[in-house]
């Protein structure tokens, strides 16, 4: 087993806005080891982007406030670190690939200029001296790593000259420019066509293997998770409800939410009966006291008003549900 690079321990986070408090993250724990591809999957509004922003330190505080837990990077808690220390990690040892390849690039600078300035900024922060030519050599090298043909020509191109798939590759290249050990990818490839998306997922998989990257992928697409991740965390209303190795979790989903979600996905083999999940996400200002899925759960009982335990159900597969506790008892 490889070393755990990123570890969230019981992370709780709330937002205060106009005197109202929204209790968004509810004791979230997750681990991202080196050379592993971990997925955090959930529907819109479940808190996956907030989790990612909390890890990167991109949430403005106030309104956001971390009320408990820790975010360990290589064993050190990011939350107790000084601002300059954290700044030295962000964009260097930990980088992000943003969702929309159309809007994340600056339209008025060439790809090479934008990539070069990332290196220049990192060099200045870390007190390194590098000439422009040396920086551009690194830019070409990384563009080649993301399988871009003819890097010298791509570096001179402006974003509008590139296709969606190429822009996504440029964004990945930007995240890899420095000595990145943790890559956080927000919905990689979802803005692209399936054939291009398949190419991007293959690239990410190769990078994890070649560079021993720890990859945390945030997505709403279960198919993408199954096709590429080693390990999955399923999130609902700010809590991790189930987690496990990809194959085990898809073969034997245990949490009622995971099961309902899998049922909702249309199957290529046909015979999907469309039912959906009754109800809507709870109000984060007054979330259910125990299991946050209980109000929509067909199996809910009175015990669900107390927080469910995280139970191991074989191997590294875990579920937060009272149903499993009853089965075990």
């Amino acid at each position, binding site marked *: 087993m490889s070393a755990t690079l990123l570890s969230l321990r019981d992370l709780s986070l709330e937002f205060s806005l106009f005197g109202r408090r929204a209790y968004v993250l509810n004791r979230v724990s997750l681990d991202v080891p080196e050379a592993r591809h971990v997925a955090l999957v959930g*529907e*819109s509004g479940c808190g996956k982007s907030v989790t990612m922003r909390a890890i990167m330190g991109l949430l403005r505080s106030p309104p956001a406030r971390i009320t408990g837990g820790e975010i360990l990077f290589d064993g050190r808690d990011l939350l107790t670190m000084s601002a300059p220390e954290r700044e030295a990690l962000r964009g260097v040892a930990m980088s992000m690939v943003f969702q929309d390849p159309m809007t994340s690039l600056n339209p008025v600078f060439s790809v090479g200029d934008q990539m070069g300035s990332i290196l220049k900024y990192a060099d200045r922060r870390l007190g390194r001296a590098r000439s422009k030519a040396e920086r551009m050599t690194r830019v070409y090298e990384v563009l080649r790593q993301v399988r871009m043909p003819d890097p010298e020509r791509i570096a001179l191109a402006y974003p509008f000259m590139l*296709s*969606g*798939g*190429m822009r996504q590759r440029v964004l990945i290249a930007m995240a890899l420019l420095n000595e990145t050990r943790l890559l956080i990818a927000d919905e990689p490839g979802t803005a692209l*066509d*399936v*054939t*291009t*998306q*398949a*190419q991007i*997922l*293959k690239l990410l998989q190769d990078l994890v293997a070649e560079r021993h990257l720890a990859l945390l992928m945030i997505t*709403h*697409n*279960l*198919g*993408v998770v*199954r*096709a590429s991740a080693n390990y999955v965390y399923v999130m609902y209303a700010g809590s991790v409800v189930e987690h496990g190795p990809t194959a085990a979790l*898809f*073969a034997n989903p245990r949490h009622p939410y995971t099961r*309902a*979600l*899998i*049922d*909702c*996905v*249309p*199957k*290529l*083999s*046909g*015979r*999907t009966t*469309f*039912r*959906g*999940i009754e109800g*809507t996400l709870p109000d984060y200002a007054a979330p259910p006291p125990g299991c946050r899925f209980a109000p929509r759960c067909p199996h809910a009982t009175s015990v669900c008003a107390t927080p469910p335990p995280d139970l191991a159900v074989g191997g590294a597969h875990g579920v937060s549900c009272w149903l499993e506790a009853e089965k075990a008892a």
Partner: protein
Amino acid sequence: MSAPPLLEVIGLSKNFRARGAFGQRAGEVKAVRGVSFAIASGEVFGLAGESGSGKSTIARMILGLTAPSAGAIMIEGVEASPGASRARAIQMVFQNPGSSLNPRRSIGQSIAVPLEAARRRRVAVAARVDELLKMVQLPADFAERYPHELSGGQKQRVAIARALAAEPRLILLDEPTSALDVSVQAKIIELLQELGRTLGLTFLFISHDLSLMRNFASRVGVLYLGQIAEIGETTALFASPAHPYTRSLLASVPVITAEEEAMRPNVPIIEGEVPSPANLPAGCSFHTRCPNVFAPCDAIDPDFTVIAADHRARCHLLRPEADTTLPR
């Protein structure tokens, strides 16, 4: 003789004039090229394709929002005339419910627009709005609410109610669920299936999501760069895709069960991206990405080969005289 199909499009084409950065003419974009298909009454016909394949342009031409460059659109065997009569026969549900509803009109006002256009009396309009909200399973008091108060799924229900208001024969669904979560998508598709059954509606369903297509459409046309590459009954087309493009497309769909994985064609991921419709490849437009390319592909654009009663594909490989050993 059997009744003519509800909708038939014959040789539909659309060319857009492309302009350069300074407004000068810069050639033509062939967005749709000779597309023909027919939809029987009560059927769900799907058009699948990646971005730039011409799906939305076809929908706009059928609605009468864009004039075709060539070809005919027939409704029940009669050439469709532009204007109000076509609008009553065909309605559309757009992709993004957030931007297809007017934020300054209440839900009731939005649904009433087609009714007022049909010059219904005001009392009748209010009663019909209630009835339509009930059909899409929304409470009657939603008529007083505004779009910003509604969730994405609720807004899409309103858009469906508005499309139903004019009592159309055909509803065009342009990616109606692609902006929604899967659990909400499932509820919208369930609603559409039920409305289709109870009201005897006919749907033209446009989507890039092949798994959804498989479960909703009874017949499918697969578009590539403005042409239908393959067309047929959904079950036959998904079980034995004949065109190399359909096979590659199916192979790249992310799936979640072992059963689906087993039925996915085992072909390598296609390289590269869709070429620009402004600069189409010569011959078969897929030959630049096709794994099976051989002698005639880069010179001759293949015509349809009939594979089964209602299953056709446009590929040289399927022609009986095809000799794949010929060098290119």
